[in-house]
């Protein structure tokens, strides 16, 4: 590029936002995509794509395209982060409203077999505006605590839309309607497994971490072993857990009567517990290791006993690092519980694998979407907890 054209081009490029250009390209491709939604004759047959104009009443399609175009222009221009945040969130809400209108538009009221689901065009636009929102949040440098109200807002918005029945015509909610009872049961099981294994890992891992901090030999043995355990792929781990527990159940009627069997909750819980140990122990060691020698000595000088020192000085100072370990464990476990469904452990994975087995996409989504939402919520909540503990430390 010559210097003359560079200076001539500068006023224009200076007014354009590079991230916004990427967002706009994705959004425009999504808007032009031949399928905004998919209409399937029933839940298993592959469907037919409907463009934005085909899937909505003319008025709604016009409003939708107009507003989304304005949002795209705002994204491309160099605009303030707050405006971009508002536009990003607004566009996502608009998409949420639009997709809910599709079933009533394209499915005759007496047809209860037809399934409508969001398709590539919808997802591309949703992704584009989610990126715009994320970029605005990153630019505003909103800390974890500030993200809490946004999480609450998102949760309330989704709850309101779900509660109003606006999405009831969509295939994933039809799938929910037929599985409602099972959905909440598996959901409870999912959370129970993720939190139960975490609790066990904290109860065992925290003292183990403290012991490892004080004793180098123990640390030298424990951490490598836990590292190796963490490396074992989850499906292999669940599989391997079946064997000892199956044998235990076969030999001991007591174990069997307690519900310990080769297949089911027990092997899943133990496998998750084993995976959880490394982050808890390693971060406890690292957190305690970061506490400055002078602080510990000062506490000693004040006449604190070993216990007082540990509980009133060292652990509170190490808390943010320990909480980081707990965050890793919780997010990881929420994902890993999904795979426990393969050995009868229950959880949302039940729907995922059932759906894969029947080639029923909607059922897969019924399992995958809440799992992602849970992991995401856990990450935001714990990030906020970490920030709180850091503030208190100062």
């Amino acid at each position, binding site marked *: 590029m010559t210097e003359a054209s560079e200076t001539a081009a500068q006023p224009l490029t200076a007014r354009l*936002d*590079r*991230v916004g250009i990427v967002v706009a390209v994705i959004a425009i491709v999504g808007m032009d995509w031949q399928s905004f939604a998919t209409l399937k004759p029933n839940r298993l047959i592959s469907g037919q794509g409907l463009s934005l104009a085909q899937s909505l009443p003319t008025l709604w399609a016009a409003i939708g395209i107009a507003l989304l175009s304005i949002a795209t222009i705002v994204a491309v221009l160099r605009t303030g982060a707050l405006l971009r945040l508002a536009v990003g969130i607004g566009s996502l809400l608009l998409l949420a409203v639009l997709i809910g209108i599709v079933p009533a538009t394209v499915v005759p009221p007496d047809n209860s077999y037809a399934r409508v689901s969001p398709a*590539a065009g919808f997802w591309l636009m949703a992704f584009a505006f989610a*990126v715009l929102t*994320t*970029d605005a*949040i*990153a*630019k505003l440098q909103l800390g974890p605590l500030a993200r809490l109200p946004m999480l609450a807002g998102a949760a309330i918005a989704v709850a309101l839309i779900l509660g109003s029945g606006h999405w009831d015509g969509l295939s994933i909610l039809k799938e929910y309607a037929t599985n409602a009872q099972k959905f909440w049961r598996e959901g409870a099981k999912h959370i129970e497994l993720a939190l139960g294994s975490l609790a066990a890992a904290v109860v065992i891992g925290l003292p183990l971490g403290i012991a490892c901090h004080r004793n180098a030999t123990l640390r030298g043995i424990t951490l490598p072993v836990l*590292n*190796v355990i963490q*490396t*074992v*792929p*989850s*499906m*292999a*781990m669940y*599989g*391997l857990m*079946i*064997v000892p527990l*199956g044998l235990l159940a076969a030999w001991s009627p007591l174990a069997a009567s307690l519900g310990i069997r*080769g297949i089911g909750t027990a092997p899943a819980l133990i496998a998750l517990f084993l995976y959880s140990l490394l982050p808890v122990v390693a971060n406890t060691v690292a957190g305690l290791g970061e506490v400055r020698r002078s602080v510990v000595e000062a506490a000693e000088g004040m006449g604190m006993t070993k216990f007082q020192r540990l509980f009133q000085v060292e652990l509170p100072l190490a808390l943010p690092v320990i909480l980081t370990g707990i965050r890793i464990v919780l*997010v990881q476990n*929420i*994902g*890993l519980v*999904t*795979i426990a469904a*393969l*050995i009868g452990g229950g959880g949302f*994975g039940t729907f*995922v*694998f059932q*759906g*894969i087995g029947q*080639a029923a*996409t909607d059922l*897969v*989504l019924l*399992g*995958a979407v809440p*799992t*992602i939402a849970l*992991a*995401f919520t*856990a*990450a935001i909540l714990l990030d906020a907890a970490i920030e709180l503990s850091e503030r208190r430390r100062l």
Partner: protein
Amino acid sequence: MSRIIGPLARLATLALLLALILKPDWFVPVLKPFTENGAPVIYNQGSLLSLTLYHLGLVAIASLIGTALALVMGVFVTRKVGAEFLPLSRSLVNIGQTFPPVAVLALAVPVVGFGLKPTLIALVLYGLLPIFENTITGLKEVPANVVEAARGMGLNPTQQLFRVELPLALPVILAGIRLSVVINMGTATIGSTVAAKGLGEVIIAGLLTSNTSFILQGGIIVALLAVLIYDALSILERRVARRTGRLAEVAG
């Protein structure tokens, strides 16, 4: 002591792994008690060797693609041209890593169908996150005065990147690759549930027919393989770290 134990343990693990894959019949007496009603003791629906090679090939291809993409992206967002994308990329990587790998796999199925494709997509997409994150961290951690000195020596930006920044960031990048490969080994195993070929098949066959012997065979092979690869990559990483440590001394 540990100098002898380490290599010995590695050698024993490798020998056990090779025996399990190449001579599964040797293990019949051990595995026999885990079968019922005269079910086959040794996996008989395909050769364990070809499944292992396929599994490793899948992980290798996905990791190579993921590494290449992550490196290019990581270098881009740490240059002046891509600086605007840096905060966004950091957030997206963080968000991406809260997605469970199995969800990425399950969501790819409706888009591209069953088999190799969704598994490869999930492996590449999910696997590039730790590498991308570590590339950014590694490049950002290169001390400013070192880059400054390189510029003072008359290196142009490309030379600075390839001769100074990337070599110094290499240990951190390698740690990301190790993490990515380990995650990919696991995701490739789950890939068998969406009909991708691989060692997960052996475990799934065992689960479907309640044949604990199959589960043990598949589980132990996958576990040993993952542990050995993790170990090998850790050794490589330590070697590189030691070398760049010296490099940094010279440069600083």
